[in-house]
C-alpha cells in the first residue's frame, strides 16, 4: 500500500490539475481575449458563454491545492513557499476576474464597466502568466533544505519560467478562441477563427521550444526522453502532437465548430503527459519523489475511498451542467 497509494494519488491529482488546466483554461482564455475584442455586446456574449460554468472549473484548482495538502503535504509545504510570489499573484488575479463576472453586469456607468473589463482581462492574463511561471519554476527544480524551501526569493524568475508563463497565456487564449468558435456564430466566430490561426502557430512554436529546452534542464529528463528503449514510449507524444496540428488546421479551414477546440484540448493533454514523463516519479524535482512527499497510507487511503466514489459522480453532474447550457450562445440569453 505504501508503494501503490502514492502512485494512485499522483495519477488522480494529475487528473485534477489537467481538468483544471483545460476547463479554467478556456474560461481564462476568454478573459484574455477581452484584450482584443472591444465591442461590449461581443464581450457580453463571451462572458455569458462561460458564466454558468466558471466557478465549477475553478473548483478543480481548489481540489489541486487541497488534494496536495492532504496526500502530499510535504510537497504542498515546500512548493507554496517556493512559488510564493507566483501563487499570491495568481490568487489576487483570480479574485479580480472572478468577481468581474458579477460586477461587470451590474455596472451602471461607462467608467465602472471599463474598470471591470480591465479586471476581467487583466486578472485572467495575470493568473495565466503566474500559473506558467509556477509551472516553469517547478520543472526547473526547487531547492529544499530539510523539510522546507531552501531557495531564494527570485528563483522562480528565469528565462525558462518566463517563457513558460508566456506559453500558458498564449495557450489559454487559444483554448478560449476555439471555445468561442464552438459556442458563438457570425462575426465574433469569424474573428475567433482568425485569432485561433495566429495563436495556433505561436502555441506550436512554443511547444517545440519548451520541449527542446526542458530536457536540457536536467540530465534525468533527457535520458527519459531520448534514451533507448524509452524513446519507443516517448516518441508517440510528438507524433500525436503533429497529427493534432493537422486536425486543428483542417478543422479551422473546413469551419468545423468543435474540432479546433478538441484538437487544442488534445495538445494540452499531450503537453501534460510530456510533463509527467519528464518529472515522474518526482513531485518536487530534483529531490522529492511522490513516495517521500506522501502522507501516510492511513491518510491517503481514507481520502481515496471518497475520491473513488465521488469523482465519477462529480464528473457526471459537471457533464450534466455543461449539457444544460449547450448550444450556441446568442444575444439575449440572460445569464445575468
Amino acid at each position, binding site marked *: 500500500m505504501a508503494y501503490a497509494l502514492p502512485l494512485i494519488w499522483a495519477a488522480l491529482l494529475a487528473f485534477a490539475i489537467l481538468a483544471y488546466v483545460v476547463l479554467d483554461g478556456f474560461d481564462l482564455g476568454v478573459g484574455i481575449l477581452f484584450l482584443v475584442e*472591444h*465591442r*461590449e455586446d461581443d464581450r*457580453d456574449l463571451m462572458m455569458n458563454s462561460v*458564466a*454558468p460554468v466558471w*466557478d*465549477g472549473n*475553478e*473548483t478543480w*484548482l*481548489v*481540489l489541486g*491545492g487541497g*488534494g496536495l*495538502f*492532504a*496526500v502530499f503535504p*510535504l510537497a*504542498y*509545504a*515546500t512548493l*507554496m*513557499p517556493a512559488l*510564493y510570489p507566483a*501563487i*499570491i499573484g495568481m490568487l*489576487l488575479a483570480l*479574485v*479580480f476576474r*472572478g*468577481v468581474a463576472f*458579477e460586477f461587470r453586469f*451590474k455596472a*451602471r*456607468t*461607462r467608467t465602472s*464597466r*471599463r474598470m471591470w473589463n480591465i479586471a476581467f482581462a487583466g486578472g485572467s492574463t495575470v493568473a495565466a502568466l503566474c500559473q506558467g511561471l509556477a509551472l516553469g519554476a517547478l520543472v526547473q527544480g526547487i531547492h529544499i533544505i530539510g*523539510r*522546507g524551501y*531552501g531557495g531564494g526569493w527570485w528563483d522562480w524568475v528565469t528565462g525558462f519560467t518566463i517563457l513558460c508563463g508566456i506559453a500558458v497565456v498564449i495557450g489559454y487564449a487559444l483554448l478560449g478562441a476555439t471555445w468561442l468558435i464552438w459556442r458563438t456564430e457570425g462575426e465574433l466566430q469569424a474573428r475567433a477563427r482568425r485569432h485561433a490561426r495566429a495563436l495556433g502557430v505561436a502555441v506550436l512554436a512554443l511547444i517545440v521550444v519548451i520541449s527542446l529546452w526542458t530536457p536540457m534542464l536536467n540530465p534525468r529528463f533527457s535520458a527519459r526522453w531520448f534514451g533507448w528503449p524509452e524513446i519507443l514510449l516517448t516518441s508517440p507524444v510528438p507524433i500525436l502532437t503533429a497529427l493534432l496540428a493537422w486536425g486543428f488546421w483542417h478543422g479551422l479551414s473546413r469551419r468545423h465548430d468543435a474540432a479546433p477546440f478538441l484538437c487544442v484540448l488534445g495538445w494540452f493533454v499531450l503537453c501534460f503527459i510530456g510533463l509527467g514523463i519528464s518529472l515522474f516519479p518526482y513531485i518536487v524535482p530534483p529531490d522529492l519523489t511522490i513516495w517521500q512527499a506522501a*502522507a*501516510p497510507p*492511513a*491518510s491517503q487511503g481514507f*481520502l481515496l475511498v*471518497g*475520491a473513488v466514489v*465521488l469523482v465519477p459522480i*462529480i464528473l457526471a*453532474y*459537471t457533464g*450534466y*451542467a455543461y449539457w*444544460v*447550457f449547450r448550444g450556441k450562445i446568442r444575444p*439575449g*440569453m440572460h*445569464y445575468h
Partner: protein
Amino acid sequence: MIDHGAVFLARLQFAFTLGFHIVFPAFSIGLASYLAVLEALWLRSGRQVFLDLFHYWIKIFAIGFAMGVVSGVVMSYQFGTNWGSFSDKTGPVLGPLLGYEVLTAFFLESGFLGVMLFGMERVGRGLHFLATCLVALGTLISAFWILSANSWMQTPAGFTTTADGRFLPADWLAVIFNPSFPYRLAHMVLATYLSVAFLVGAVGAFHLLRDRANEAARVMVSMALWMALIVAPLQVLVGDQHGLNTLLHQPAKVAAMEGDWLDPAPGAGEPLVLFGWPDDDKAANLHEIAIPHLGSLILTHSWTGAIKGLRDWAPADRPPVPVVFFAFRIMVGLGLLMVGVGLLGAWLRWRGQLYQAAWFHRIQVAMAPAGFIALLTGWMVTEVGRQPYTVYGMLRTIDSASPIGLPGVAISLAGFAIVYFIVYGAGIAILLREMARPPVPGEPSAPRSPTRAAGLMPGPAGAIEDIPPTAAE
C-alpha cells in the same frame, strides 16, 4: 531561525483573508437555505410573492457567492504559503478533511449553481428546485468539514505524533467528531441562519418604511422575525453549551473571555466581569465592574463553582486577553439584542401591528449587520483564544510558519489588503444597491441583461443607463 515579526504578519494575513472570506460563506449558507425554503413555498402554494422573493434574493446570492468562491480559493493556498511547517505537520490529518470538503461540497455547490442561477427556463421547475436544494446542501456539507477541521485544531483527537512532531491519523471518526465539533457546528450553522434572518428582516423593514403595502417586504419581515424568535434563544442555549465544552477543553480561552486572572477564595465563587480593561502586562483588569457569583452561575451552573484564572498559566501560554475579552462581550451583547428583537416582533405580531410599527422597522434596519458582526467577533474569540497554539496544546503558532522573510509576508499582506478593499468595497456597494431596490411583483430573474429574450418571466429590460450595447472601448 524564527522571525517573530514575519510570524505576526503571517497571522495578520490569515486573519485578514479569513475575516473577509468567512462572511460570504456564512451569507451563502444562510441564504441558500432561505432560497430553498422560498422556492418550496412557491412550488407548494403557487403564490407569486414567493417567486418574486426568490428572484430578488438570488441575484444578491450570486454576488455573495462569487465573492465567497474567490476568497475561498485564496484560503486553500494560505495554509501552504505562510504556514508551510503547519501544513507539513498537520497535512496527514487535516488535509483529508479539506479534501472531503472539496469533493462533497464545493463541486456540488458550483456544479449546480449555474443551473440554480440561470437554468429555470432550461430544466423545468422540479429539476431547478433540486438544484437549489443541492446548492443549499453543499453549503451545509462544507460547513461540516471545515468546522470539523477547525475543531480538530482546537480539541485535537484521534491522532499519534511522530518524533519530528508530525501528526498522523489513528482513528478517523475520533478526528472528525472531535470533542468540540458538534457544539461548534451547531453554533456556527445557527449563526449563519441568524445573520441572514436579520439581513432579510432589515431589507424587508427598509422597504416597508417606504411602502407599507409592499407584500414581498411584509413576507420578508414576517419570516425573518419567526427565525429571530425561534433561533436567537436557541443560539443562546447552544452558545452556553459550547462555552461549557470550551471550559472543559480550553480553560485558558474561557478565562480570557471572562477576564478572569485569579482563582477565587474558596466559597467566594466567580464574579462576572461586565466591563474592564484587561492588561496583559499587569495580568489584571483595570477599571473592572463585576457582579459577584454570576460568573459561577453561568460557567459552572452553581453558586460557588470556580474556574482557573489566567495567572495559573505562564505568560507565554496565555492568549492575548483584550481581543478575546472584548470580542466576546460584543458577540454576547448582540446575541441578547437579537433575542430582544425576536420577542418584540412576536409581541407586535400578537398585537397585529407588525407591519405598521415604523419605530420597530428602524430598529430592524439598524440590526442588519448584527448577525455578521456577532459571527465575526465569535470567530475572533475562538481563534485568538486558541493562541499561542495552532493545534491546541500540541503545536505552537511560532513553530507553524513558513521560512518566508518579513518583506515577503509584508508585501503579500499589502497586496491582499489593497485588492480586498477594492474588490470587497465594490462588492458590498453593489450588494447594498441591490438590497436598496424594492422587490416588485413579477420580479425579473436577471434585470440587467442588456437585451431580453421572451422567457418565463417577461420583465423590464433593465438597460444599463449610459452604455449602448454596442459601445466599443
